[in-house]
């Protein structure tokens, strides 16, 4: 059983799992800021994406030809590519934030961080490759 009273805390140098996962870069602020920037971008991009696919073509099947037709306009290419990149960052950074609030050891957190980076990079490459079919 754990001892009720612990040894005196090391006040000077607190270990911090919220702090630099990539030393010496402080990730807390950057992640916070980018999470909010991508959130705003996603509200705009996803608003256009869902409106175009859900409200302006009510009652129609989405087919390959229709998507190719939509991608004739560079505007939609920018929007969909934008969603792919911002959503990948926002989602995976969100998962990282969820993991940081769980009682998980810093070593596992660090491993999970790099796993998320790999998932993000591979996912975005795979997604761009997929979108190429319509161009």
């Amino acid at each position, binding site marked *: 059983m754990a001892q009720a009273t612990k040894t005196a805390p090391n006040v000077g140098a607190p270990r911090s799992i919220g702090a630099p996962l990539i030393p010496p870069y402080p990730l807390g602020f950057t992640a916070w800021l980018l999470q909010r920037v991508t959130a705003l971008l996603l509200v705009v991009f996803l608003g256009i994406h869902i409106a175009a696919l859900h409200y302006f073509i009510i009652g129609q099947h989405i087919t*390959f030809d229709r998507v190719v037709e939509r991608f004739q306009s560079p505007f939609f290419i920018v929007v969909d590519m934008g969603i792919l990149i911002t959503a990948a960052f926002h989602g995976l950074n969100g998962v990282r934030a969820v993991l940081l609030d769980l009682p998980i050891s810093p070593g596992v957190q660090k491993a999970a961080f790099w796993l998320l980076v790999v998932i993000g990079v591979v996912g975005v490459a795979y997604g761009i490759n997929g979108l190429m079919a319509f161009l």
Partner: protein
Amino acid sequence: MRTARYADRWPGNYRAGMWMWLLHRISGVVLVLYGITHVIVISSARTWGPGTFDRVLERLGSPLFLALDVLLVWAVLFHAFNGIRCLLLDLGIGVRRHHKPLFWAMMAIAVALLVVNVVVWAPYILGKPLAE
């Protein structure tokens, strides 16, 4: 004095902010899983060719998947408008006094948009076939 115990690890009686935080994370994880699925489905045009893409999308246009789409739309709307609420709080809007009206306003907009979506798609969810 030998051991220490925790009396109550999970106190009940949470206020709205706590539920919003939990639901924001749950909807976020759901959306990440959906996003991965979505990329795989859309990439089927590249991976297996346009024919497969059309067949998959036709299957996804069935009433069952259109009904599941309502859940997805709710996850998106909830996550988006709760996220906007958090953004406004971070900008210092409503954080001092009006965080409760702000919460109700955001949830009202989200529910209104969900109702619009359900009303528009209701005939197809109930079995009306989609146009080719």
